[in-house]
């Protein structure tokens, strides 16, 4: 059975329909890339998976357990599914270390020294151990995003949701962040990522979904989607991305 099962999810903000019957199933160790224009519903879908937005209808199952609707233990869900945002969203009043140990201590109940040891170990893996005492506004965007990924990893999640995590970065900083995601993918982390980095999606994805106006128009293996797209919309989208020099 699929680890994450999204079944016919609908979501509107007021009158605006954002998700119009989306279904995806994600197996363990799978990397699913959501591509599509801005406003196609990629971010909203990730927010719904993490219960940051309630769905209007349909359901989402995590490891066979329903995580949408009333009475869900959202904090348990979020403990298992980490999320990283486009705008990093580090806590600006806390140092890097404090950012990394807050949730492990409060939610997982780790002791301070355990949480700190884990944070230092993970920071070392992304080459950021020197910045442990810095505050977020002293770091570059790429460094902040690396800390944000480590912050999510410090909860030892079963799956990660990555919402256009390189979209706000200067081009020369994108590589460092993507390298971390690449490593996580090879280590078998289950991931769903919304991205505009088509080359990267093609490299790491086991499944690519093209979203258009809240619907999944086309899905498949990356080589099929990128080399032989069946839908006219997909072809148009990829042509526009190609024209912008990002493929």
């Amino acid at each position: 059975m699929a680890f994450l099962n999204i079944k016919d999810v609908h979501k509107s903000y007021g009158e605006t329909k954002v998700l119009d019957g989306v279904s995806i199933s994600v197996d363990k160790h799978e990397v699913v890339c959501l591509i599509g224009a801005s406003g196609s519903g990629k971010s909203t879908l990730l927010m719904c998976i993490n219960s940051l937005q309630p769905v209007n209808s349909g359901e989402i199952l995590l490891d066979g357990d329903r995580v949408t609707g009333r009475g869900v233990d959202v904090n348990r869900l979020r403990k298992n599914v980490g999320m990283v945002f486009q705008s990093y969203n580090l806590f600006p009043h806390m140092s890097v270390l404090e950012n990394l140990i807050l949730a492990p201590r409060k939610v997982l109940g780790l002791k301070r020294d355990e949480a700190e040891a884990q944070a230092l170990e993970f920071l070392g893996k992304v080459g950021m151990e020197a910045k442990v005492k810095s505050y977020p506004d002293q770091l570059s965007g790429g460094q902040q995003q690396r800390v944000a990924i480590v912050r999510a990893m410090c909860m030892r999640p079963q799956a990660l949701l990555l919402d256009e995590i390189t979209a706000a970065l200067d081009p020369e900083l994108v590589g460092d962040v993507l390298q971390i995601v690449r490593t996580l993918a090879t280590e078998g982390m289950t991931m769903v990522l919304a991205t505009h980095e088509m080359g990267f999606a093609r490299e790491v994805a086991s499944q690519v979904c093209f979203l258009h106006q809240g619907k999944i128009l086309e899905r498949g293996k990356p080589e099929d989607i990128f080399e032989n797209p069946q839908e006219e919309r997909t072809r148009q989208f990829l042509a526009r991305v190609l024209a912008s020099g990002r493929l």
Partner: protein
Amino acid sequence: MPESGLGIPTTDQSAVVGMEHTPPQRISLLIAVALFVWTTSFSFYWMGLFAVDALVNPNSEVLIHAIFVMLGVMALLPAVPLLKAIGGIPKRAKAIKLNDLAEGRYVAATSKEDALVTLGFSGGILIIGALLWFATTNDAAISTTFLNPEYIAKSWTGITSAFWINVQVAVGAEIIVLVSGLVIAIMRLLPGRPGRPLRLIATIYVDVFRAIPSIIVIYLVGFGLAIAQVPFFKDLPPTVLAIFALALTYTGYVAEVYRAGLESIHPSQWSAARSLGLSYSATLRSVIIPQAFRRMIPPLLNDFIGLQKDTALIGIMGVIDAFMQSRIYASSDFNLSPVIVVAIVFVIATIPQARFVDSLIARDQRRQKASAG
């Protein structure tokens, strides 16, 4: 006309023969105005000084005369930039004659700056001169009514000791308001259907108590609770009732400060904290309140300064505060100088706080610039 690839017409570069060079700006008129304003202010100021000297120095003591002359000489200072500005006129003419337009523009701009400095200082001197003159007109009636040294000295001790009542009431009310304001603010922010009744009550409270003038609340609390023989409240001393009345009014203001502070934190901070599994209250405690608190301090202190000033109203319920005390002095001597003393005491108590608020705001702006840059 040639067109760029986008269809936007561009200037035909070959048609530009030679651009007109900007001549130095005219400065004579401005310098004349500066000269006129400075001479006027200078004479006004000296007239004012003469009048004050005559008033405070009836025995013609030389030392006091000397002080006034020195104050008068200070009004000569604006003449320095004025002379420099005047010196710029021939230099400008010479530069134009030599066709050195850059030098001419530089000289003119420097002269203009100097003339403006003279104007600024002369304006200040003019205002001080006018005030001195105003204070000494009608045979110095203004200053004897408001600034009589004898009555000031006589009332100073009584008023400053009565001011402690104001301090006690202000501090007492501020402590209550810090807590009650938070309670009302959290009530206003309660989410969903279950929170609706409390949300409504908190909203009405804030609307009502921000609308009623605090003097009316003080009046109603000060007399009403005793007249109605409300248990517990009827036996309280008036000072405590005053604290209670001011706290009622300012809870409304401070609740709004808290609410605005909490709502000013970007929703993405909520998303980030909740996505890590932190609960609603843990997010509020560890992430939202610490960030909001820093932003709340300046508006909070602003409201506290307002509260401190409103302690001058509690005299109407029979508390002898500094203002009431000064009115007692004023009516027995038929002179308003004691009231000026209260005003001065309030100013002395408030200015350090106002500067503190300013420095906090400045620090916050620097921080924001630093993080934006």
